[in-house]
């Protein structure tokens, strides 16, 4: 794992974002154990305090939970998982629409572009599957 950090957004928030994407992608399964604070710092090459803060926030947001002295795990709560997915989709969509809007792309063209782009991604995916 190697994250490229931008230095303007708090690092801990970038870590949380990273986790959300991994969860939405399915790379991290619900209920799966997360690395310890120290392991996370080592893996992502961040300050252990940052890892600590990220975990604290994620715990507060309900993304992870800790039972007693056991290692923390990703939530199994469907509502939370769906909310994460929802949040990521909304953010990406918002960013995309804002860009399109700022350069005056019409709604029809936006829909067309989205459809075409999605189509070509699907085809590439099939090609990869076949080869």
């Amino acid at each position, binding site marked *: 794992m190697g994250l490229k*950090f*931008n*230095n*303007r*957004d*708090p*690092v*801990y*928030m970038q870590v949380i974002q990273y986790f959300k994407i991994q969860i939405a992608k399915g790379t991290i399964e619900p209920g799966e154990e997360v690395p310890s604070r*120290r392991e996370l*710092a*080592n893996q*992502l*090459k*961040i*300050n*252990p*305090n*940052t890892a600590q*803060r990220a975990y604290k926030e994620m715990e507060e947001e309900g993304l992870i939970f800790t039972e007693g002295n056991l290692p923390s795990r990703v939530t199994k709560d469907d509502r939370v998982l769906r909310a994460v997915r929802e949040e990521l989709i909304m953010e990406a969509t918002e960013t995309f629409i804002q860009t399109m809007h700022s350069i005056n792309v019409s709604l029809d063209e936006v829909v067309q572009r989205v459809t075409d782009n999605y189509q070509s991604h699907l085809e590439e995916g099939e090609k990869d599957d076949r080869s």
Partner: protein
Amino acid sequence: MIEVKNIKKNYGRREVLKGVSFTANKGEITCLIGVNGVGKTTIMNAIMGLTPIKSGEILIEGKPLDKTSYEKITFIPDAITMLPQMKISDAMAFMNDYYQCWNQKRANDMLKFFRLEKESRISELSKGNRAKVNLLLGLALDVDYVLMDEPFSGIDIFSREQIAEVFTSHLIENRGVIITTHEIHDIEHLIDKAVLLDEGVILKEFNAEDVRENEGKSIVDVMREVFHV
């Protein structure tokens, strides 16, 4: 916690430190940032008792420096501090001999991590490897505070990456680290507290994550503002 309280120092008639105050906490990475000649090394030397101060106070966990402090705090300067004709094994034996807090196992682990040979002579090592030996000799001590002066200066990029890795590893965890640098590129995302220095004064002291969260600025942004570049 290391407390530096209003320290002043002259070199001859030149005022090098004009009343510098800051604190460095255990478990945090504090970075003194400023161009060369601004007094960073002097501050480090002063904390370690390697140079006297004219006035002010320096406290390590509430107490002034004495000989037992060297089992609690170590300094990795920007220079070789072992006899060049020594082998790495000699240097390690030397440290083991004098320090109770020398951790031989960690020293051996670091040798492997840095890919250094015990039997090499320090004088025959490249600059990057010498810097790593320096780091090893400092970090293999079970001290609470580690001070590093320009750990990245004049080092090739691959050695820099290795050294930067040290900051996110168990070697630093739970310790208080103070490092000086004029170049924060490699570690900007690792710094807890930034202390900006210019001409013997502290211009600003801040927590990097807080500033990112509250003001949306990177350390470099703040530096640009404060140093008027």
